[in-house]
């Protein structure tokens, strides 16, 4: 598994197309069944939008009025096609964020409503995710069709909100522009500072967000932040077994496997076997493994151990050693020789997208 949706570092050149395609499939179904469709159900039940609004929009919408415009595929080789699918998925995810309760206040919806609606507490409400099969070519064709279908429903839904007067095109356009502005990923900077500044580290571990605020790191409003420290004796791993709580306002987009049911189930059932199978981490038997299960009001990330052989390195250099995985406990920070190997192989560091919230 690799790529920006995987838990392996993003590679400058793709090697495993199937892994990329599977990551897109996973993420796409997650966003459809967990983030988008439950919202439609919620609003249908409350007459904010009706089936008939959607039907009317669908039959009268002109292509020139479309809100979402998907970039054309550039090139025909597999790599270009896979990247196109990834970019399309990203637009779909942004599109869902566009019609979040925060943007469209008339919806009067909080995250907890969405959790109820998607069956977090009652299997009866669960929306079944699609299963994918077939050759790489078949899967890519299917995925493209799914993306087209899902984007169309999103388009129709956005237009219905506009027609019903829940939002204005200008407001949505402005929000859409904002959603395409990215914030810098601060994971590496935070950790490097904690490694070199004991006072900051103490503040970070004791107060979480307060310490980041003083450091000038942007952060949203997704609950209290707790930072847990890896040491000689303790390795920490983060999970949200109920859904996918994650400090995304600071660490950016959640890796797809973090949201996957197998990780969320196995990490609390048999954590040692899980970190070995999924992340190839073999912890010494005398090291305590601590799993932190977030349930929304508190978000966690791991302060990884400073690697050996980094004495005297600057904060800027140290920040490059920090991977997303190491902040979840799914890996360690790189040591300088690993970083050199990656740079020599032109393996670009995986930097998650941090979206405005």
């Amino acid at each position, binding site marked *: 598994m690799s790529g920006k949706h995987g838990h392996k570092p993003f590679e400058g050149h793709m090697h495993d197309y199937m892994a990329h395609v599977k990551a897109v499939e996973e993420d796409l179904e997650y966003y459809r069944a967990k983030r988008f469709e439950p919202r439609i159900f919620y609003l249908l039940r409350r007459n904010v939008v009706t089936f008939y609004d959607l039907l009317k929009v669908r039959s009268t919408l002109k292509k020139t009025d479309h809100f979402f415009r998907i970039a054309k595929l550039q090139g025909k080789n597999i790599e270009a096609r896979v990247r196109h699918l990834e970019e399309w998925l990203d637009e779909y995810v942004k599109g869902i964020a566009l019609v979040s309760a925060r943007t469209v206040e008339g919806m009067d919806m909080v995250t907890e409503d969405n959790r109820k609606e998607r069956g977090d507490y009652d299997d009866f409400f669960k929306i079944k995710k699609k299963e994918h099969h077939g050759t790489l070519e078949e899967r890519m064709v299917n995925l493209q069709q799914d993306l087209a279908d899902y984007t169309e429903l999103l388009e129709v839904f956005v237009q219905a909100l506009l027609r019903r007067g829940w939002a204005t095109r200008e407001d949505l356009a402005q929000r859409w522009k904002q959603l395409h502005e990215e914030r810098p990923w601060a994971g590496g900077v935070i950790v490097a500072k904690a490694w070199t500044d004991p006072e900051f580290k103490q503040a970070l571990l004791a107060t979480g967000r307060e310490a980041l605020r003083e450091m000038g790191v942007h952060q949203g409003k997704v609950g209290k932040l707790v930072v847990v420290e890896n040491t000689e004796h303790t390795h920490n791993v983060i999970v949200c077994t*109920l859904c996918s709580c994650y400090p995304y306002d600071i660490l950016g987009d959640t890796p797809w496997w973090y949201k996957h049911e197998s990780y969320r189930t196995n990490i609390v059932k*048999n954590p040692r076997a899980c970190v070995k199978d999924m992340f190839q981490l073999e912890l010494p038997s005398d090291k305590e493994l601590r799993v932190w299960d977030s349930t929304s009001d508190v978000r966690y990330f791991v302060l990884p151990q400073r690697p050996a052989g980094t004495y005297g390195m600057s904060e800027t250099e140290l920040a490059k050693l920090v991977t997303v995985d190491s902040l979840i406990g799914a890996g360690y920070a790189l040591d300088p020789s690993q970083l050199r190997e990656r740079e020599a192989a032109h393996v670009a560091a995986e930097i998650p997208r941090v979206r405005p919230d």
Partner: protein
Amino acid sequence: MSDGISKYKIGDAVMVASENPSGNPRTPRYIRGKRGVIGLVHGVLENIRDHRGIHKPLYTVRFELSELSSGHDTDTIWVDVHEEWLSSVRPDS
């Protein structure tokens, strides 16, 4: 140490209710009916984007893995739990 809001303090032995229909639904099933120890005390957290109203005080409760499953016995699972799910137990009872 008490914050005057939270009933339990770090180190208190607690038991999670098996069922609690009126309690916060975000209490994972695998810890229900299990014993743990208060690991962190968060107090009452406001989170208006997430849910309506105010929840009871929140704790992070430490569970030995051996209490929850058959895993490696030095490992621990730390789970956020609201106060209405918890009751006191004597540590060795």
